[in-house]
């Protein structure tokens, strides 16, 4: 599957099928710090991602002035 990552914006290819939780482990990302979007829909940790899926792993942490 094609996975879009941000900050910096880049794409990586990851073989499916793979659960969302396992994808985040493979990418060494904390579940609290990202959303996983398949197509235009949010998916939970137990969803299985297939080879043909387009997936975005979107960071949710913003910092700076408070």
């Amino acid at each position, binding site marked *: 599957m094609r996975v879009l990552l941000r*900050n910096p914006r880049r794409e990586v290819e990851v073989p499916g099928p793979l659960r969302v939780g396992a994808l985040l482990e493979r990418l060494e990302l*904390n579940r609290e710090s990202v*959303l996983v979007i398949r197509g235009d829909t*949010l998916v939970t940790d137990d969803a299985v991602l297939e080879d043909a899926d387009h997936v975005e792993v979107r960071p949710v942490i913003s910092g700076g002035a408070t």
Partner: protein
Amino acid sequence: MKCRRCRGPAVLEVRRHNAAFCADCFLHHCREQVRRAVHDHDMIRPGDRVLVAVSGGKDSLALWDLLLDLDYDADGLYLGLGIGDYSDHSGQAAKAFAAGRGARLVEVDIPSEYGFGIPDGAAAARRVPCSACGLSKRHLFNRAAVDGGYDVVATGHNLDDEAAVLLGNVLRWSTEYLGRQQPVLEGGAGFARKVKPLIRLGEREMAAYCVLEGIDYIVEECPMAEGNRHLGYKNALNEIEEQSPGSKAAFLFGFLDRVAPLVQRTAEEEREGLHPCPGCGSPTVSEVCAFCKLVDRAGGHHPARS
């Protein structure tokens, strides 16, 4: 995974509540959390005019959307910070949202009105950019609210923001800042009331809210914020949260319930020493307020008043 409320297929897990939600029930959950925060802390009172500080990011746009959905009289305020493409994109996101919802957006452009941008101003004043940005925002949000006759300034600080600020203040035992870390700071002479209606919602929930509501927010991080201390605190807290869901909420709400009342006196004493700044008239405890010092060091100016 099934939605806790309707048992339909879930789209988002919220581990600290040991729950998952479908899209409709998640949006309901967000509205209820904001409604509860506003009610429990008496943030917005009948007839109040609210000015929402809007950056174009997920938190502030979600907050504005939620307050409008809850029928509050809420306008937006966007500050142009002069941070190149980032400011251009964030301004576009704020304007597009306002146009889409038919809401009123007040705009203040710091470079054209005050003669400096945050990156240059911070460098000239020898402050880190996030510090110069934060003090400028606090000053200008309040200024715009007082000048515009608003009762309340609402900011998009969420549970993660507040927990990270708390961690920073505790690590340095900054009692002065701890005393001010409240969901509501009451108004007074020269001050609008400041409220944080998102304190019961996490950062991940706010991003999910925007995705599900189709709100086009600026996903890219501010280039000035990279590697700052606040982001480090958030990452540290998320490591703990991953192992022990609910830790961030327990940390923040435990502080607000049990410790904040003990340190509040420090903030009250500070307020007693407030007087109008001779440069701009805003309340300050210093001879000249921090924003006027920044304007001076950055070689800027105050806008002409009509």
